[in-house]
């Protein structure tokens, strides 16, 4: 006779997390994006820590009513440094629970 313990997947994940095993639980990060020359803003959102910066940039551009075009590059900076769209928020935030970006519009000069 086999006496089993019927844990649900959720319970197992919780146990693994509590024992320091398994994937790190996703955290919510407060995100702020400023675009200084806009009369609107800043843009605020709460995002899961593994959200790509590009997703935040896209939502911020919508908030600031900016449409992309071929003449300009739009990207986010953090501490004056450009952050690529593919980077996860948690990589920028480190241990912080909030992260602030600036939206930059750069003229592509030929």
């Amino acid at each position: 006779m086999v006496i089993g313990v019927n844990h649900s997947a959720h319970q197992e994940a919780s146990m693994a997390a509590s024992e320091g095993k398994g994937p790190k639980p996703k955290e919510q990060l407060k995100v702020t994006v400023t675009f200084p020359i806009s009369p609107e803003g800043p843009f605020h959102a709460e995002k899961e820590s593994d959200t790509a910066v590009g997703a935040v940039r896209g939502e911020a551009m919508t908030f600031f009513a900016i449409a992309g075009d071929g003449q300009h590059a739009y990207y986010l900076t953090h501490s004056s440094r450009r952050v690529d769209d593919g980077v996860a928020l948690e990589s920028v935030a480190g241990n912080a629970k909030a992260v602030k970006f600036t939206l930059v519009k750069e003229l592509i000069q030929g």
Partner: protein
Amino acid sequence: MSAVDLETELALAQDEDAARTAATHAGATLESSATGIYWLTMRAPDGERYVARIAWTRYPDHAPSVKFAPEVDGPLDQTSAWPLIPGYRAGNYDICQPFTAEGQAVHSEWGTGPEAWPATGNCLLWVVEQLLHDITDRYQGRSG
């Protein structure tokens, strides 16, 4: 007597705290030597120090003149005070970009359309953040 009008003085007073905070956060300093005249002292990634003078004639309606000097209140005609950054023309003592009066003067076509001076939001903060970003991410060394 101030060289700028009262509207400019009041609008700058409203916006300069945010610009000063942004500069401090980036390890730079923003100080004013006269109404409408700001000096942004920044460190490039190689440790070199640069001082940009941001001079407003009418805020926020017109783009500011942006030039570099060896120190605060220093002369504006020394190419060695300039960083090498795309669009920054040390030989002409100007920055050929839409956020400066010099760039807007060279490119009259920028007067309308997407490159037009915005005159909205916190323009002082915008210019300070543009300069901080350029010195951090687009810097290529010191001009000769």
